[in-house]
């Protein structure tokens, strides 16, 4: 199993394609372990929804493994590009469908009924609250506008009367301070 962990992405893809007894299954599991979080992140970035991102992972990884098994991916070393390409195509289709769904939803249901609760099981949310309170007001506002209101740097700048460059600097500094606070003992005291 350690050999799988140390193997390159290309080696894993070749092992899946070769369908060697015992090996292919372990290689598939390792490929999934590596790429599923990356596809999820891509999904979150482009679809902005945890459930949609998880569904995207299932669909992309299923297709990628199927293509590998069927020998449809010629250059195994390009497996990362292949998975990215599939993610892009599927996310684009997803957005198109979601746009149609949203139009229908807005017409019939209030937003409070359809907002999915957020899930951050691995994060110490109480500690995060403490760390957030320790940021300067401007830093906190920039982070909330970025991560909650989902505004670009340019939009945040307009909202807070700052240049886009300034927003990026504040955002970077703020997330850094938050991360440091979250990983330090002092942050929770």
């Amino acid at each position: 199993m350690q050999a799988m962990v140390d193997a390159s992405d290309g080696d894993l893809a070749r092992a899946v394609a070769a369908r060697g007894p015992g090996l292919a299954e372990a290689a598939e599991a390792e490929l999934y372990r590596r790429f599923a979080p990356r596809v999820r992140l891509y999904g979150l970035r482009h679809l902005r929804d945890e459930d949609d991102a998880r569904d995207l992972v299932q669909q992309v990884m299923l297709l990628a493994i199927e293509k590998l098994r069927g020998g449809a991916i010629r250059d195994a070393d390009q497996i990362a590009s292949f998975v990215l390409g599939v993610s892009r195509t599927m996310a684009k289709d997803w957005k198109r469908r979601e746009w149609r769904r949203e139009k229908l939803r807005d017409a019939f249901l209030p937003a409070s009924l359809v907002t999915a609760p957020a899930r951050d099981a691995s994060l110490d949310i109480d500690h995060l609250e403490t760390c957030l309170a320790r940021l300067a007001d401007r830093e906190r506002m920039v982070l909330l506008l970025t991560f909650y209101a989902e505004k670009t740097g340019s939009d945040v700048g307009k909202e807070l009367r700052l240049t886009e460059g300034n927003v990026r600097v504040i955002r970077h500094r703020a997330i850094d301070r938050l991360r440091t606070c979250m990983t330090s003992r002092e942050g929770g005291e």
Partner: protein
Amino acid sequence: MLPCQAPVPDATLLDYWAGDLLDGDEMNRVEEHLFACGDCSARLDQMAALGAGLATLVRQGRMSGFVSRAILNRLQRDGVRVRMFWLAPGETVPCAVFPGDDVIVTALRADFSGVETVTLSVTGPDDSPFGRYDDVPVSGARGEVLWATPAALVQQLPSMRLELTLTSTGAAPTELGRYVLDHAASPPPG
């Protein structure tokens, strides 16, 4: 797996996440790298998790401090129950928390022409200091200061008058307005 040979800087990862990489080629390069590199994608994942945590806190009404109109709009879209009190300079406004409120927002109006940041001083009965907030950004095109407090926190306050003073920040601070919140305590539960 090989360690990352050319890590993407945190600032670039944040730009990517926030939709600030306007150059399509750069965006493609970052995405190609993220799909091939476990280290960088894990770093972005960590930042994204912090961002998702912030959003969770806000949706739960667990945030104190200043917000902008865009945040307020998003709160209302998410079904967070926001009670607002609007105050113009010199005004006294009665305020209270009602069952079901999640967040209380005090919206302070003033002439913010040429003002980028302000100081908000809050005093309680007998001029006792209640809070002071420096370098608060003025938000929006017309200018406003929106002060958000969890309803659960305000609910614990006794009846009292709070005097709020807004002063511009800078070399020559100017008073922009004084406001009074006449807070009525919530009746005990049951």
